[in-house]
């Protein structure tokens, strides 16, 4: 990422600073909101860090039982761990699992301890939760060690391929084959609808709709298989999954515990595209990003989605706005630049004149606004018509933009997009396409200098200007959290998502003054005990 040395676009540094300042202004009240609320999923994630896993015979996870029981008796506003570890100290059960099982049958009394009892319960909670934090630290060190041993991919962008059979035991050989064919990153798409489940399924799963359930065991199986393949190939193969939906904090936690390497984690995707309550999303998102920061996980944001619902030319600036907001929320949660896989996509209608030049302008703008972030470049989907031959050409041009603008992560486009799940041969052809373009034109970054005030520079400046206008509008909304107002009145896409509506709202709780969550404390302090 050498664009910092010789910027290709002549952007006014003051304008760029203004854009970031506006994103901060829009984001800060939302962070305040996140700091003053908790959710059922944040509390369940905390229990998962303390080592509680498994589910009852009806596959309801024990963390759900325990959080529900505590909530019913003393509420969650003080945090789940204080009443839980108080109950354990009182000998209600010998360990956390037994306590959860007893709580499920209603045979545990929870209370809110007072005085010294509180201090002791909280100290015990911190000791237990710190084990999970240390496991995450250990997994991060393991990753660093394996990368040193096996090495990173030789080229940039890293090549990102998707598998999605629904059956983890089918996914594994597919993922290993994809890595052998040249993939650097394997993403296992989740089963449709998992984002709206308010629990994380358990165990190895063999049936999913258009994807495979994200479970701790599936994570573990796939990571172990890719460790083998990394060794075989002499290249560390990264694994990606989705920390989104109602269980974002828990899935992030499981990803940290099982050493996943990248997670899809957008700040507003769930709100806009899944109708999840905005406050629930922002609270969950902050916790999940703190975990990702700690675990050394690279997040991938979902700006491509804006362009599939709106016109990619007219809505180009919404991508920039979302990237700036995602960057603000990510950094606030402790993520570093190298962990920000900010998304954007090749979705301009190919029938438009100069569509390729506009794609170049947009991609360069993202590249230059975030010089140290491994941007994630997403292939065309909206204008893939089923004409696989034309689609193959379009993917070639997509790859060319990726090569010319120094993208960090390239999601490989399939010519059979919107036709079938990719054939073995589709993947092979797609990878040939990527390799040809990177090999033939990867060096173009050296020669390619769009002239000042030429089409590309002008277009990039225009998009940045539009983004600043939109951010200004957002910050001028009334109320305590203008961003929430903007989301409520349909500023993003066409979707109106008021803060008092949406899925998962009943899982949001205002924190009391004595709220305690040892995980949050340790994540914010950077401590491990």
């Amino acid at each position, binding site marked *: 990422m050498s664009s910092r040395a010789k910027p290709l676009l002549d952007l006014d540094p003051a304008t760029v600073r203004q854009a970031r300042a506006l994103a901060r202004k829009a984001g800060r009240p939302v962070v305040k909101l996140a700091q003053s609320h908790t959710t059922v999923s944040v509390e369940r994630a905390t229990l998962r860090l303390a080592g509680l896993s498994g589910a009852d015979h009806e596959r309801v996870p024990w963390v759900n039982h325990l959080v529900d029981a505590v909530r019913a008796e003393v509420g969650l506003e003080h945090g789940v761990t204080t009443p839980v570890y108080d109950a354990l100290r009182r000998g209600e059960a010998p360990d956390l699992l037994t306590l959860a099982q007893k709580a499920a049958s209603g045979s545990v009394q929870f209370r809110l301890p007072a005085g010294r009892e509180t201090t002791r319960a909280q100290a015990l909670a911190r000791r237990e939760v710190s084990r999970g934090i240390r496991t995450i630290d250990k997994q991060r060190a393991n990753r660093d060690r394996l990368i040193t041993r096996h090495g990173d991919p030789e080229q940039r962008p890293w090549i990102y391929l998707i598998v999605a059979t629904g059956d983890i035991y089918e996914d594994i050989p597919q993922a290993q084959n994809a890595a052998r064919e040249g993939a650097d990153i394997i993403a296992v798409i989740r089963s449709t609808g998992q984002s*709206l489940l308010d629990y994380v399924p358990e165990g190895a799963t063999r049936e999913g709709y258009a994807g495979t359930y994200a479970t701790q065991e599936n994570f573990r199986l796939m990571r172990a298989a890719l460790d083998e393949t990394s060794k075989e190939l002499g290249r560390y193969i990264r694994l990606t999954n989705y920390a989104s939906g109602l269980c974002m904090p828990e899935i992030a936690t499981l990803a940290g515990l099982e050493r996943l390497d990248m997670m899809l984690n957008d700040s507003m995707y769930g709100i806009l*595209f*899944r109708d999840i309550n905005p406050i629930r999303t922002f609270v969950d998102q902050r916790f999940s990003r703190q975990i990702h920061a700690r675990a050394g996980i690279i997040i991938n944001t979902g700006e491509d989605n804006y362009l599939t619902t709106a016109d990619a030319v007219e809505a180009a600036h919404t991508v920039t706005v979302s990237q700036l907001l995602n960057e603000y929320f990510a950094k606030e949660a402790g993520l570093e630049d190298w962990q920000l896989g900010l998304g954007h996509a090749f979705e301009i209608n190919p029938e438009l004149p100069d569509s390729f030049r506009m794609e170049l302008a947009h991609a360069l703008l993202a590249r230059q606004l975030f010089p140290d972030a491994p941007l994630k470049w997403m292939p065309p989907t909206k204008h893939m018509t089923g004409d696989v031959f034309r689609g193959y050409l379009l993917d070639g041009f997509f790859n060319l933009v990726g090569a010319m603008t120094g993208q960090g992560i390239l999601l490989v486009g399939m010519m059979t997009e919107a036709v079938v799940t990719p054939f*073995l041969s589709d993947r092979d052809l797609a990878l040939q396409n990527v390799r040809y373009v990177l090999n033939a034109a990867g060096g173009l970054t050296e020669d390619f200098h769009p002239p000042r005030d030429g089409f590309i520079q002008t277009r990039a400046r225009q998009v940045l200007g539009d983004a600043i206008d939109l951010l200004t509008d957002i910050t001028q909304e009334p109320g305590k959290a203008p961003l929430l107002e903007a989301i409520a009145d349909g500023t993003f896409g066409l*979707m109106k998502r008021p803060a008092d509506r949406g899925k998962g709202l009943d899982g949001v709780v205002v924190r009391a003054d004595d709220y305690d969550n040892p995980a949050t404390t340790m994540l914010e302090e950077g401590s491990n005990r």
Partner: protein
Amino acid sequence: MSASTTDSAMPLEPMPKAGKQGAPAKRQPDIIRPYGDTTGDGMVQVSFTLPVPHDKRAEGAALQLAAKMGLEPALLVHAKPMGPDFTFFVVYGSAKHLVDLREVTVVEREFPLLSPTEVNKAIKSRLRRKLVVVGACIGTDAHTVGIDAILNIKGFAGEKGLEYYREVKVVNLGAQVLVPELVERARAEKADAVMVSQVVTQRDAHIHNTTTMSAAFREAYPAGQVPLLVVGGPRFEEGSAPKLGVDRIFGRGTTPGEVASYLVHALAAPTTKEKA
């Protein structure tokens, strides 16, 4: 490889040239073959993968498959190993099969497929207000996959969900909604259509749930004013809508665009003889 016998069955006379404008409808032959670069050459291309390592035998296997597919003569133009166990082929060849246009039957959808813009326009001009859709998963089914694919803006199969349609107001109640709750909400929202999804059900719960639902609506609304009842799910039988007391059933693979088009067809159809 001489000319195959099927060639003689070809109507080799060239198609009559379409005359100048206003010429009588041109006659199309009933029997046709694929067109490569000459009428009647039957040329097609196929690509496929066989689960064998790439060698002479693999290429022979590809030609054998081509022959069995009716490609004669077949030309293997490309063979490439894909990993140690697979080979990818591109084959060109003349298909010996004939297409008889007289035997082609087309099952027509009872309504035309409209684009989102056309749907919005139809609703706006004919209903003159937003079309209200209330959706839910009823009974014990917690799988909102189906209803969300149709209603959520994210949509399905590259099509945006009904929320995307400016002239459609969507109220998605989510999973495990009780029938009385659904009826009450439909009345409160003045629903034009009620959409119910049943994805994962045991035994015949989807049928039971649906009939309960339709009965409840008939009871709660004056005759003739029941909203349009639409159910979707992979296990419903096509054609069982009347039996279940609903207006339309949608099966697996239905896209939001089809549902939107149907809603326009059923609720905002371009009727000119509306007086009565």
